[in-house]
């Protein structure tokens, strides 16, 4: 048979990747968003390099937060709208695994590329080169949590056609710890201090999110279907 051979969650992940590949032109959107938001700051704040370099860690992280948030919005929405979600919930695979698979794909197509270009964006804001490794690694770990926590919000609002605003209200406050430790790591590196403890804490967040977020998202999806 030409049917998938793995478990259902693998098939779901494969389809999401296929759709993402179909629309690979869109893959650049979070990146461009990051760039534009970062570029707005010199315009709004003024072009003085020292000042920009001081606020760079915070600005890049806030921009990454927003980019990740905005791309989360559609995580479950389209499956809900066309009835796929009903089929997914009824499939023999546990919803926990499916939700986790979808969040993982989301990280792969948004969080991961965002992390990879963040050093470029930070460079535009005069972040010292010494801080770049810290930025890259804290982003790679932090965006995992962002995708997972954002997935909870996407699942909660999946049945509502309210755009990204409501989602932001629910999720941005929950992003605070990642923002704090992410920008702290970069700041520390920029001042030549060690930044490994921050990274370890970000890793802890990611682990916690991996275990708990799919549970919450699965519950939220079921609730939204049963309305």
């Amino acid at each position: 048979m030409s049917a998938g051979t793995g478990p259902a969650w693998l098939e779901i992940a494969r389809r999401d990747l296929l759709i993402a590949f179909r629309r690979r032109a869109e893959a650049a959107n979070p990146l461009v968003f990051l760039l534009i938001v970062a570029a707005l700051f010199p315009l709004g704040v003024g072009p003085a390099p020292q000042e920009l370099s001081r606020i760079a860690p915070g600005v890049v992280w806030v921009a990454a937060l927003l980019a990740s948030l905005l791309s989360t919005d559609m995580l479950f929405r389209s499956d809900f709208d066309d009835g796929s979600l009903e089929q997914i919930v009824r499939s023999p695979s546990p919803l926990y695994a499916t939700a986790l698979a979808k969040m993982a794909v989301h990280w792969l197509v948004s969080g991961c590329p965002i992390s990879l270009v963040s050093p470029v964006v930070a460079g535009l804001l005069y972040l010292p080169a010494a801080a770049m490794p810290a930025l890259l690694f804290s982003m790679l770990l932090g965006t995992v949590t962002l995708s997972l926590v954002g997935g909870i919000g996407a699942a909660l609002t999946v049945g509502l056609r309210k755009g990204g605003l409501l989602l932001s209200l629910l999720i941005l406050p929950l992003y605070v710890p990642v923002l704090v430790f992410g920008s702290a790591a970069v700041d520390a590196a920029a001042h030549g201090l060690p930044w490994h403890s921050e990274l370890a804490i970000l890793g802890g967040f990611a682990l916690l999110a991996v275990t708990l977020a799919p549970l919450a998202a699965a519950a939220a999806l079921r609730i939204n279907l049963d309305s």
Partner: protein
Amino acid sequence: MPLFEACDLRCERDERVLFEGLSFTLAPGEIVQILGPNGAGKTTLLRAVAGLSTRVSGEMYWNGAALPGSRWEFLRETLYLGHDAAVKPGLTPFENLRWHAGLWGRTTSIGIEGALGAVGLARHRDTPAQHLSAGQRRRIALARLLLSPARFWILDEPFTAIDLEGVSQVESLVAAHAAAGGVVLLTTHHRLSLDCRFRQVALESGALA
């Protein structure tokens, strides 16, 4: 022994009782059509049977086992086709069906290509679904009937947007499924013309005043 049994189902929405004391059974080979005017509660009932809604109280049994308990065996054996067709606009008919088959992990021997041919979409195999007409998109969903090995079909208005030839084709599919020992629960506002016997259960409702 009936394959599926529903006892004393009851549903209230917005302080209005949609149905009450509703019981029916489905022995192997049986087809039940739920009848009722618009707003009678047919979709509500079918979603509850499919395990998607908890708004309906009462007991349901699959193969003699009470339902929320034996949920997994039940889900593995049922196919639900709702108002929304679960067809991704960005994917081709072939990719859509491959996904559905993968979700179940197993298919019948007809294969995806065969199913597409049977519903008349062979030549649109690689056209993204968003470039298809309403009826063609619906046909992709109907191809799942051919592919799924499920014994219990739950079909909510399967004939929406389907042309006359397609309707009679689906009707013969339903009859053949029952003849092979499967069970079918469906709603439609079409006048069914099946080659076999089928029962009708009416939802009494004052919805239309």
